[in-house]
């Protein structure tokens, strides 16, 4: 006995296409505006200025050694002729991460506040994460055509689960005494969320955002199959022509972008590190020293 689930999905997709096209157009317009806006800004930024910004960010947030790595690796990307492709990819990553956060953070908060919401959302997240990424490229392309918009949407779906899960987990793991303290001093529900829960869940939430960025970077390469563009195109070309060199160049550029984004976003959840910390540490630690001896 066989079930024809595929037919059902087909007709569901067709039903949505026939009846919800204004909604789909609206979503496409909003996401398109975000993606194109970011892309326009990034592509308009001169390469030297772009590299300078990355290097300064690395210096400020991570450290001197990493800033050197950033400078050298971005110089390499530029000399492979992949700078603008990388900026396209970066704009897709930023746009999809932004959308994933806009949806994921409130969803994670809702999960943390209600066991019922958590019970409903969790299997959906499992589905989003485990469904092979290629599978939702097809409906994304059907609903939104080819280009950056369906690429962003497919990326959002694939990369959103970590930020939802870790926001939920982060809030639920806030120590019960902090919650009691908040309540004991007369917090309303929203005060408790913004003054106690979210600040204390921040490291976990930042880890979620970091993971979302990493996943979206891996997905935008796949999304190039529906015309999302960027470094993914280079990799795809390498595969199609069995050109190991081109594929490897694209791969290296993805890895470089991944390492830089990973290190910088990881540092956001922590205290200021690196070069600036050396400057600030002396003043900051003085009261600590006297606190210990007092």
């Amino acid at each position, binding site marked *: 006995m066989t079930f024809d689930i595929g037919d059902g999905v087909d007709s569901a997709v067709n039903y949505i296409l026939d009846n919800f096209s204004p909604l789909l157009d609206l979503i496409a317009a909003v996401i398109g505006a975000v993606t194109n806006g970011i892309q326009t800004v990034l592509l308009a930024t001169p390469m030297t200025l772009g590299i300078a910004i990355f290097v300064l960010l690395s210096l400020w947030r991570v450290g001197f050694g990493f800033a050197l790595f950033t400078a050298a690796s971005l110089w390499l990307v530029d000399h492979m002729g992949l700078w603008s492709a990388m900026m396209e990819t970066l704009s897709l990553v930023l746009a999809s991460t932004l959308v994933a956060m806009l949806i994921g953070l409130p969803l994670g908060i809702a999960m943390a506040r209600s066991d019922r919401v958590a019970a409903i959302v969790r299997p959906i997240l499992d589905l989003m994460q485990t469904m092979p990424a290629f599978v939702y490229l097809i409906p994304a392309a059907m609903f939104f055509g080819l280009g950056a918009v369906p690429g962003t949407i497919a990326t959002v779906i694939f990369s959103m689960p970590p930020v939802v899960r870790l926001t939920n987990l982060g809030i639920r793991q806030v*120590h019960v*005494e*902090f919650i*009691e*303290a*908040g*309540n*004991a*001093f*007369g*917090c*309303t529900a929203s*005060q408790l969320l913004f*003054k*106690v829960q979210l*600040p*204390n869940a*921040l490291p976990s939430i930042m880890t979620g955002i970091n993971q979302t960025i990493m996943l979206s970077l891996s997905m935008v390469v796949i999304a190039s199959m529906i015309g999302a563009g960027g470094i993914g195109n280079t990799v795809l070309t390498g595969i199609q022509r069995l050109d190991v060199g081109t594929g490897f160049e694209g791969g290296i550029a993805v890895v470089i972008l991944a390492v830089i984004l990973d290190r910088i976003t990881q540092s956001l959840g922590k205290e200021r590190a690196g070069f600036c910390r050396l400057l600030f540490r002396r003043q900051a630690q003085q*009261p*600590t020293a*006297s*606190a*210990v001896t*007092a």
Partner: protein
Amino acid sequence: MATTESDPTVKISIKDVFKIFGEQPERALELLKAGRTKPEIHAATGCTIAVNDASFDISAGEIFVIMGLSGSGKSTMLRLINRLIEPTSGAIEIAGRDVAQMSRSELVALRRNDVSMVFQSFALLPNRSVIDNAAFGLEIAGMEEAERKRRARTVLQAVGLEGYDDSRPDQLSGGMKQRVGLARALAGEPTVLLMDEAFSALDPLIRTEMQDELVRLQSEHSRTIVFVSHDIDEAMRIGDRICIMQNGEVVQVGTPDEIVLKPANDYVRSFFRNVDVSQVFRAGDIARKTQVTIIDRQGVSAAAALERMEHYDRDIAIILGRDKTYHGMVSRNSLIETTRDGASDPYRRAFLKDIEPIPAAESLSNVLGKVAASAFPVPVIDEANRYLGSISKSTLLETLDRTA
């Protein structure tokens, strides 16, 4: 201790309060009221009874210690007062208003203005500086920044923590952290302060220091303090009254003296195993009126006194005035000698010279030497010179043995 609702000295009144944790609290409550035991109720409903029919009053301005072992329901009891935990049934009245019946917004107002709390593990928010932690309650209540920082600085000063405004909690020692916790609780000028094992996480020396600090703060500005502790020394040290809880039930409420002298059961008694009683007891606490007392009246002969001493088989007697004031102590021999010559006022001349009465407030550690050195039981008097009883060597040994 019987109080009515109109009694102005009662700040917090706990009336028939039950707290049952689990899925079916109503059913468990019915079973409990029907006289079923806790294991039976747990088997039938899966519920545990945290607080079982608690009723007591806390007076305005006193330090009221709730004591018990872990699992006795003392922390739950404390959290019922500001309704961090919802009671299953019963009333918790603060200044005549039932907390259990309050709406959400009334509860928020109560917590902001009247009742604040200090936690065992400090519960300082790690992302905030010391001053922002101290000002937390004020910030929540919507006070503008300059004013709340000014007030926070004042309370930090009051708890002896100056110059750490911008430090992070993790840069402070335990004692300093709890000073911040105390400052945070005091900043809103609450009338009730709930302290949940507030000093238990501190080193013994720091703990004593913080207890003294609390008593000092209390002497400057009297609040109603409900202090949960598992440490009997702490309870004795700071408590005006102590409430002892066992398995969710209140087994005894009384002053430290009452608890020590008349423990309600073995559970209460067991707390004093390791207590240095010579520090806890005063002379007045253990003095016993087992000696023969004779009231010194004109026209009553010493012969009658001697006869009574013989009748009770006592070597000594205490001579009192009509107003029960202590005059002196006589022995059978000294009295026989002074009556033999027939002169007047036989008692006064028969007083034993080396017997010095002990004031009731004298601590037992000071009494030990005097009783040990004396051949007779030593009389104890109050501040009005009234005779309270005597302490014999055997009484003393019994008292010390109580804790063994």
